[in-house]
């Protein structure tokens, strides 16, 4: 049994993305949800499954606010930034099993106006081991934890900061075309090289944004999707994967390999396609380095070749593998990757702000705080 093309994304929605709001994560999440439900041509009461991201809302909030008469499925996929894409697998399993018809995946957050990352991670259960053994020494935020991975990659493979810069610049170029991106001023490689050092080798322009907003998608069974408002986007393959020692990066035998390396071959096998078939990819970009590493782990190039791959211009909008066409977490907004799912669906419908001509098959990844990976491969039906 396989989930291949048994589920579809039938609705997507986003709020305006901001850096500064007095609204609550719940309010932002519900607004994005209403937009996604409307995009699908459904009424809020049609939703009978929900997977909240786990910030600011629980299943009960959706029942209360939408008057859902009979919610039949609720779950959480607590994998940090891998949650949104991992939730796609969870939702499709639920609709395919006949548990429910339409599952809402939603996130709302006040990452800019509310608690910032250095404070937030100390309260997350997946940071328990880091909290006891590494935070007392001053290893506190993801930027520091990933800097160690990036440094090792640089030492082993000759990867350079200028190659990280290419990811930042390319992503910003895409954001400049997107009216709902928060960072739309052009940047150059030199701007990146001159940006302040956060935790060497990661500079300010290697880091993603802290954002306020909400994003949501609706997942429905494939056979039901055919009769809905939008052209369905079918999920061809989907998987999650966990790195060896997901609780602490530093304990991993190979810190340059992520959970995605386990998930990607399974997703491609399920989908029946190869990396060469992918027209557009939305890659979780909490930091530039993580994009480079995931390009390798997804199979677009060999381990260690991510630097030259991005340097070739391949990930630009007109390159052979356009990446983060919406501006990503680096320049659009940090919606924990739900905005990446929204963008992939828009690309495959032909509705994106920075549209890749003829995009038919695409890929989206999620990346959790300690390297958990998730991936979905989709096609226009």
């Amino acid at each position: 049994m396989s989930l291949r093309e048994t589920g579809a994304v039938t609705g997507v929605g986003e709020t305006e993305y901001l850096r500064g709001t007095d609204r609550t994560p719940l309010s932002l999440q519900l607004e994005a949800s209403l937009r996604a439900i409307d995009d699908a041509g459904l009424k809020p009461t049609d939703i009978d499954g929900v997977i909240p991201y786990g910030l600011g809302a629980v299943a009960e909030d959706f029942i209360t606010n939408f008057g859902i008469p009979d919610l039949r499925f609720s779950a959480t996929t607590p994998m940090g930034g891998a949650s949104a894409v991992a939730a796609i697998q969870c939702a499709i399993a639920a609709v395919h099993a006949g548990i429910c018809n339409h599952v809402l995946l939603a996130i709302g957050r006040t990452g800019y106006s509310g608690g910032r990352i250095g404070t937030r991670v100390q309260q997350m259960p997946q940071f328990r081991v880091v909290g006891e053994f590494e935070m007392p020494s001053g290893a506190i935020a993801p930027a520091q934890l990933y800097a160690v991975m990036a440094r090792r990659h640089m030492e082993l493979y000759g990867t350079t900061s200028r190659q990280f810069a290419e990811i930042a610049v390319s992503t910003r170029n895409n954001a400049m075309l997107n009216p709902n991106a928060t960072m739309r001023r052009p940047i150059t490689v030199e701007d990146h090289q001159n940006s302040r050092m956060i935790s060497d080798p990661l500079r300010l322009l290697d880091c993603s944004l802290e954002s306020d907003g909400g994003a949501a998608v609706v997942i429905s069974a494939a056979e039901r999707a055919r009769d809905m408002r939008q052209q369905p986007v079918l999920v061809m393959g989907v998987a999650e994967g966990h790195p060896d020692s997901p609780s602490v990066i530093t304990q991993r035998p190979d810190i340059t390999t992520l959970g995605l390396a386990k998930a990607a071959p399974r997703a491609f096998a399920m989908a029946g396609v190869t990396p060469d078939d992918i027209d557009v990819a939305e890659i979780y970009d909490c930091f530039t380095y993580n994009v480079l590493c995931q390009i390798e782990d997804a199979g677009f190039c060999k381990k260690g070749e991510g630097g030259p791959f991005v340097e070739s211009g391949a990930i630009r909008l007109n390159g052979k593998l356009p990446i983060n066409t919406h501006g990503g977490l680096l320049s659009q907004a940090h919606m924990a990757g739900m905005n990446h799912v929204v963008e992939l669906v828009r690309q495959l419908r032909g509705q994106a702000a920075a549209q890749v001509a003829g995009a038919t098959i695409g890929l989206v990844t999620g990346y959790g705080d300690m390297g958990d990976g998730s991936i979905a491969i989709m096609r226009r039906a």
Partner: protein
Amino acid sequence: MAEYAKLVPSPTTDTQPYWDGLNEGRLRLQRCADCGKVRHYPRPVCDACFSMNVAWMDASGNGRVHSWTVTHHAFHPGFKPDLPYILVTVDLDEGVRMQAQLRRLDARELRIGLPVRVAFEPATEGLTLPVFVPTE
């Protein structure tokens, strides 16, 4: 004495011997009491034989640099006076890895495989933290 402003660990019964060891100037590692596999950071079950029988051993304290970062931004106010500081991941001779701050070396001299040894720094009442220094 000013109040200690940095993050402090909350040891459990599984991990307390590690912290007690640091206070005594010893780097203690868990070793499976049945199959002998050394593991770190401390946890309840051996992933090789699934035994929950734990022994503790004194590590040599010697290892080699695996990777590093130099932090220039204070993600917690308590660490602001330390900026910039070097965090190293170190492969210990016992086959496990740990992370701590590095002392007595310029970051430009760091490389994978550089020999280091553990040292002990009293942090606050009842808390000693491990640090690494270059092996002479």
